[in-house]
């Protein structure tokens, strides 16, 4: 059982991908280990034949326990393709993609977010044609309701199914989410407060930076949290802990499978661009099941953003033991009154669910007012 994160002491074998007698290649996933909500592929440490499975599916064992034995063969030649860099080096240390010079240049020229472009080249590489097609598409007229919360690109490899659920039974992830949500509602005195905000400057800012609105709003929320640190806190029983650092949870939908909240640690140190990069990376890895258990722990405040489908308000459930959660919904052009004149502005409604045990409504309203002030005064973060 590999050490999946510093705070993890045990793990459950969710699935064996290989059976005794199967050939395995070094770094090929041989089984799936599950800790909390995170499923992680365990790569084979060497090439050879899987001769013995020591821990069956469903069993939880301590870190360091031997899971299986691989009989290693004599050294064998590695297949080197025409472009060896592209072949079999998916597991790059930084998880980064490679872009060709022309693609990198076009992205810089047009301020493009390459992660948002679907690649049709070898192993999903983004080609010049993909960028051209994306640019052509980008010129199309905006829709009536324009959400800045662009969906993340589809994961390139299908998300590994944790366990095939029995007929009628909930998946392990759904059960886990259900337990968390129910416990939160039973524990917290949840109230929700809303405020309306003009997103004009955020919209302009995000276009300039080539980002979605999420990291910009997150940046504003962090600034508001610094002014109202009582919301950046945990309430555990009677222990109320206010945090200096903002460990920002971002809810990421996994489609049918459920939801997961990767945590951007020390988010207060990041610019909007930095946040954008980290959020994108976390979301991508969440969807491909590559998050480490440490990356979903320790959040002090959470943002959820289901607005891409056009919904305008929600009452999110607080992620325990945090005391508040911010909900971002669709940005919709609306007529608004500005200096006694009617103007068309991209408006949105921010919703804050907060725990009445920890604070009162006036603080929630002050936080939202502060958030709105930062959003409407956005000047590059």
């Amino acid at each position, binding site marked *: 059982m590999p050490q999946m994160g510093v705070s993890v002491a045990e793990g459950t074998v969710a699935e064996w991908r290989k059976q005794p007698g199967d050939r395995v290649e070094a770094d090929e996933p041989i089984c799936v280990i599950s800790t909390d909500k995170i499923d992680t592929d365990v790569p084979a440490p060497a090439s050879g034949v899987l001769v013995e499975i020591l821990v069956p599916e469903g069993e939880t064992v301590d870190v360091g326990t031997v899971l299986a034995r691989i009989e290693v063969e004599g050294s064998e030649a590695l297949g080197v393709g025409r472009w060896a860099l592209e072949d079999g080096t998916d597991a790059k240390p930084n998880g980064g993609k490679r872009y*060709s010079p022309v693609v990198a*240049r076009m992205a810089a020229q047009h301020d493009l977010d390459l992660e948002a472009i679907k690649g049709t080249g*070898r192993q999903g*590489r983004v080609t010049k044609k993909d960028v051209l097609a994306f640019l052509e598409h980008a010129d199309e007229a905006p829709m009536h309701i324009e959400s800045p919360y662009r969906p993340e690109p589809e994961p390139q490899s299908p998300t590994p199914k944790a366990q095939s659920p029995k007929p009628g039974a909930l998946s392990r992830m759904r059960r886990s989410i259900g337990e968390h949500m129910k416990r939160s509602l039973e524990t917290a005195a949840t109230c929700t407060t809303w405020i309306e905000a003009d997103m004009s400057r955020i919209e302009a800012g995000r276009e300039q930076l080539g980002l979605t609105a999420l990291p910009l709003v997150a940046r504003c929320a962090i600034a508001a949290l610094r002014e109202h640190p009582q919301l950046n806190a945990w309430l555990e029983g009677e222990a109320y802990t206010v945090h200096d650092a903002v460990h920002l949870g971002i809810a990421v939908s996994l489609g049918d499978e459920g939801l997961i909240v990767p945590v951007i640690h020390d988010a207060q140190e990041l610019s909007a661009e930095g946040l954008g990069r980290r959020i994108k990376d976390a979301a991508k890895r969440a969807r491909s099941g590559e998050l480490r258990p440490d990356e979903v722990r320790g959040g002090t405040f959470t943002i959820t953003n289901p607005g891409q489908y056009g919904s305008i308000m929600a009452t999110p459930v607080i992620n325990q033991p945090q005391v508040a959660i911010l909900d971002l919904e669709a940005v919709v052009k609306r007529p608004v009154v500005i200096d006694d004149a009617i103007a068309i502005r991209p408006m949105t409604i921010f919703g804050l669910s907060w725990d009445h045990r920890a604070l009162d409504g006036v603080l929630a309203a002050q936080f939202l007012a502060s958030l709105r002030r930062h959003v409407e005064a956005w000047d590059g973060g």
Partner: protein
Amino acid sequence: MPTMTYLQAISDGLREEMRDDERVFCMGEDIGVFGGAFKVTDGFIDEFGPDRVMDTPLAESGIVGTAVGAAVVGLRPVCEMQFSDFISCGFDQLVNVAGKMHYRQGLAVPITVRLPTGGGFSGGPFHSQNPEAWFMHSPGIKIVAPATPEDAKGLLISAIRDPNPVLFCEHKHLYRRIKGDVEAGAYATPMRARVARDGDDLVVITYGAMVHTALEATEELEGVRVLDLRSLVPLDEEAILDSVRACAKVVVVDEANELCAAGAQVAALIAERGFEDLDGPVVRVATPNVPIPFSPPLEQAVLPSVDRVKEACVELLAY
């Protein structure tokens, strides 16, 4: 417009220039009475006489050296190497004397050396080579390599009129195989590249006989441009970089041995000046660094084939 073979177009260009300019004369082995090993100068001796269509001994150094002397005193010699492979015997006269004459003494050396190049007909290691890169490396010598009858005539005329030593690489495998419309009368084709087929997804850059290999290889592929260099020195760098800008993916094909071939220079140019336009590695297809075998199947195995060029294009298009 008359239709001619590549070989007839070369004869036609040479004849036009000899008729127009009495300073132009030919020298070579068996080019007079016999009409040349490949019959490029068939009938020339009857029209122009033995003073302007000179049979020489088997002595390439003597042929080139004599031509240099004649050029310096104002004539326009056109030398024929029976096979381009034999130019190695005239190397010193060409590289050290002709190529550097203008630099050392300020004298123009307007000679043209016709080099029947290339393989594909089981000629073996002494009769199939593509020696152009030897001379690209040597300053002071121009090199052209036409792929079509029209360009063969026009580039030969340009070569003869050029004040520098010019190597005219005429591919033997094109002599009677390739036909095309050729304008009547004298015309000079500029020493610049031409787009043989347009496209903007990938460009195959090549010259000489490989232009036809590239055209055939990419006939069924969509969006593939074929750039025919036509001239190696001067190399049309802007045309190459334009194609890289438009297509972003490049396959460079040489019939010559791969190491330090003309295509290597093209690839180096793209790496240096076209880097930011590339959407994939520059791929080369060339003859491996081996002598050209006599054996027909072995020769076909080493020369870039239609299949090899096509495979390289398909693979790079998918990159």
